[in-house]
């Protein structure tokens, strides 16, 4: 058969089009003129979680469920053909997946649109840690302990205000996450959110960086716009309050008082609408007592202060956090890990987590990575997680606790036997 003959087969419609679409390295959907699904290729079935039988005949918006479905539907704009855009879908597994969407029209011989098609390319969205990002928003704050309930109830109030916020908590307690959450749930959500570390620059450069600097031709200094101007309408988050020199604190206090900044080398105050969010690992009262916090500045921060509890005081939340991170890392590493063995749970329940949720997440990441079975066992935990001896001592067969003995959680111990069974 010649190439021309083969082209004729396509022209005559004798080619297995669904098979061809299934072979594509990206998702593909075919819709009729009403936007109802005619075909989903295998990759898009996997991506959306809909089988072809379920999806066929449904309006495309109920299958693809992109952020642009509805008023911004690319098929409705400018005829809907030949458009590409970056958006996201939420699949049936409740996962939000960033995608690049290409819309195309398939005309008949007379040029009338016969079908519309979407080609869906999954985009990899990763944070610095390799985890899928989009971990802001209240849903990212996991837990049902009284402490977390308090935070979840307080946050909307904080979000509604324009006053500065002070977040106090140990490392890994979620200060950054909550600052981002306050911003994203406020009316400033569509404006910039800048994170500004104060610890690296000398005070004079810091002030220019923050408040801007007027050009000084004689001195050969160029104009600096300043972070406050860049964040106009949004929020600036300072992750460690104690890094702010006293001179800067006084200027920040003046800004909180007047709503204006004076760039270096300028004389006229410039009004700027920016909300300030601060966090610290240290006790702010002690900082104030030691003279490291300007009293006027500290007064401004005291009104909206939120103390974030360490994980060891949120025991109730531990199972949720463990399950949450195990699920996420299992998905990321494509491993069939469904949870933790009772022994591993006991070990993890006893651990004090000095690095709080961040450390817990790292422990779970390691455990999922090294797990060889659907349940994580003590042997999968990093070596620095101490194991109480009780669970380590294997109970000889027939010599377990009496049936009426109080049910106390067993304490796992990592021992060579454990390692053998776990990996």
């Amino acid at each position, binding site marked *: 058969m010649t190439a021309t003959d083969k082209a004729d087969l396509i022209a005559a419609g004798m080619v297995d089009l669904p098979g061809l679409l299934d072979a594509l390295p990206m998702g593909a959907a075919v819709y009729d003129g009403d936007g109802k699904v005619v075909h989903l290729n295998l990759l898009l079935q996997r991506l959306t979680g809909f089988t072809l039988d379920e999806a066929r005949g449904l309006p495309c*918006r*109920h299958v693809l469920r992109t952020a642009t479905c509805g008023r911004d539907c690319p098929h409705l704009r400018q005829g809907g053909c030949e458009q590409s855009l970056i958006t996201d879908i939420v699949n049936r*597994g409740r996962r939000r997946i960033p995608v690049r969407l290409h819309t195309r029209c398939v005309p008949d011989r007379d040029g009338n649109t016969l079908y519309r098609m979407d080609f869906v390319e999954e985009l990899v969205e990763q944070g610095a840690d390799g985890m899928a990002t989009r*971990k802001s928003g209240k849903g*990212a704050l996991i837990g049902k302990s009284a402490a977390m309930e308090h935070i979840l109830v307080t946050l909307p109030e904080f979000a509604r205000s324009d006053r500065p916020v002070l977040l106090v908590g140990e490392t890994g307690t979620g200060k950054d996450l909550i600052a981002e959450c306050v911003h994203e749930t406020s009316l400033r959500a569509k404006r910039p959110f800048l994170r500004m570390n104060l610890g690296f620059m000398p005070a004079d450069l810091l002030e220019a960086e923050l408040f801007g600097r007027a050009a000084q031709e004689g001195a050969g200094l160029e104009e600096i716009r300043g972070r406050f101007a860049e964040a106009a309408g949004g929020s600036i988050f300072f992750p460690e309050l104690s890094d702010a020199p006293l001179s800067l604190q006084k200027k920040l206090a003046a800004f909180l008082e007047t709503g204006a900044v004076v760039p270096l080398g300028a004389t006229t105050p410039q009004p700027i609408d920016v909300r300030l969010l601060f966090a610290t690992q240290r006790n702010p009262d002690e900082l104030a007592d030691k003279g490291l916090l300007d009293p006027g500045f500290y007064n401004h921060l005291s009104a909206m202060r939120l103390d974030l509890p360490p994980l060891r005081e949120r025991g109730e939340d531990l199972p949720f956090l463990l399950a949450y991170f195990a699920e996420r890392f299992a998905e990321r590493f494509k491993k069939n890990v469904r949870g933790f063995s009772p022994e591993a749970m006991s070990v993890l329940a006893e651990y004090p987590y000095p690095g709080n949720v961040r450390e817990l997440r790292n422990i779970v990441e390691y455990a999922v990575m090294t797990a060889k079975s659907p349940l994580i066992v003590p042997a999968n935990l990093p070596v620095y997680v101490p194991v109480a001896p009780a669970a380590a001592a294997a109970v000889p067969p027939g010599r377990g606790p009496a049936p009426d003995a109080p049910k106390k959680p067993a304490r796992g111990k990592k021992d060579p036997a454990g390692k053998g069974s776990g990996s």
Partner: protein
Amino acid sequence: MTGHRALIAIRGNEVAWRFDRTAEALVCDIAEDGTVRSRSEIIFARQSPEDLCDYVLAHGIDTVVAGAVEEEYYHYLRYKRVDVIDNVAGEIEPALARLASGRLASGDILFPGKEG
């Protein structure tokens, strides 16, 4: 008064296909015998899942019905003891009828010809 209060995220005359892209909701009080005692439509100032969650918690909603609900909002509502019936595709009335009779489940497809 027994029964329960439900919020159906809506878009036009359909169950909203994305919870996080919803600015309208139907709030219903459903009696134990399945009678819909009251229904009111709420229009929010913006499409915001945070606003929806706040509304749900502030107004004693027991059940939320929507199409796609991203996991973070799903878990958040579940932790707040709110039932979430998600992945529902269909028009409002059939969804409400099933909900009232206690037969609506996550993943239900209710468009004509597709009812399970």
